[in-house]
């Protein structure tokens, strides 16, 4: 924040930056649209029922389109959400912790924070959710 003031930049610059990013997105959408549209002109369209069949190694598909998958993914997603929300808090802290007026005490706070993360991870590890076999 302070750097922005120092360089005499304003909100106009700030929004200019992101509007260019928005323009890149527009260019990207245009690129994909042109690719799809020209692909439509170049390629043949000869559909048959066999082609439209779901691919299952060459035999007729068996059952529906559902497949059993690992329920453990669910536990990982919980763990992930907790950690990711925590990790995002690191970024604002990271930019100021070494600035004058912060220093040692801020670092200790950070270690408390990291300690919480580590204990949470150790708990999950101990509970055996990080290993399948």
């Amino acid at each position: 924040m302070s750097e922005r003031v120092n360089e005499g930049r304003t909100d106009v610059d700030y929004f200019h930056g992101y509007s260019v990013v928005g323009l890149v997105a527009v260019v990207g959408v245009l690129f994909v649209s042109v690719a799809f549209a020209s692909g439509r002109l170049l390629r043949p369209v000869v559909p048959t029922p066999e082609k439209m069949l779901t691919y299952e190694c060459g035999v007729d598909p068996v059952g529906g389109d559902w497949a059993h998958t690992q329920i453990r993914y669910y536990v990982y997603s919980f763990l992930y959400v907790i950690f990711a929300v925590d990790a995002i808090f690191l970024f604002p802290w990271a930019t100021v912790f070494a600035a004058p007026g912060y220093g040692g005490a801020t670092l200790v706070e950070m270690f408390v924070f990291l300690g919480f993360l580590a204990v949470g991870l150790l708990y999950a590890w101990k509970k055996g959710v990080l290993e399948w076999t």
Partner: protein
Amino acid sequence: MNDTLDVVLRLIAVLVVFLVLPLLVGQTEHKVMAHMQGRLGPMYAGGFHGWAQLVADGVKFAQKEDIVPADADRRVFQLAPAVALLPYLLVLIAIPVGPDGFVGQTVDAGLIFVLAVMGVGVLGSLMAGWASANKFSLLGGLRTAAQLMAYELPMLLTAASVAMAAGTLSLPGIVDGYHWWWTPWQLVGGVVFFTAGLAELQRPPFDMPVADSEIIFGAYTEYTGLRFALFLLAEYAGIVVLCALTTVLFLGGWHGPWSGSAGWLWTLVKTALLAFVVIWLRVSYPRLREDQLQKLAWTVLIPLSLAQIALTGVVKVVIS
């Protein structure tokens, strides 16, 4: 008016880089893999050592019939390649190439922006896997999503470590603050970041989501022609972005001898070397199992990145 021209030129430059560099990486992969395995690789297309192989592939892809399975969720199925591809284009604009504003566009919170946008690409695979109405695709899509959980956190944590070292989230700002001893200081973080990035890109040895011997081609099983080509382009654009980001965050970007005049060259050389390593790893290591990746991420990469953050914090407070 000058401003408009400037922006237009930047947009064109980003698009050209986005379309050319991934093809270079792809062609290099063909040739490097071939020679590492005692083959010659493509030799015919274009005449000289098969240099036009990927152009020929592109022409072939564009002429292939576009098949949407009857059971598929048509709109989502058709949109998925675009969702997988475009985030990498967006990221490219924020990556600094040389000193003094040689960057598509300086984004203040560039580090957060880049990591956030890269995460969106995974949605494309998830959409493809879900909308294909195919068991293999669904398994592949879910593996992709599970892989996101595994690598995203180490990536965020090690990127935070770099932000701590530099005291800013702006990517040009991070390279500006770089000193040579940052690389050994952040070495563990760099290795973790690069490894996690490989997992994001589903590159071997972390290619379980597209494991051809188990689930055909994962989420992309039902795709043909142009849409399939876009998924492939996304993978190679991802390699470029990952290598460029690792260069910017951990290897000092444009820093090197004569960086004043040839800074951009350093960025490109370092990126190319990392891309070579990506290809090399593909040839060298067998595929991990899905659970082995999760175990690696949660019991090795995350503790290592937490340790790196602690180290960065202590060193930074001591020297300042």
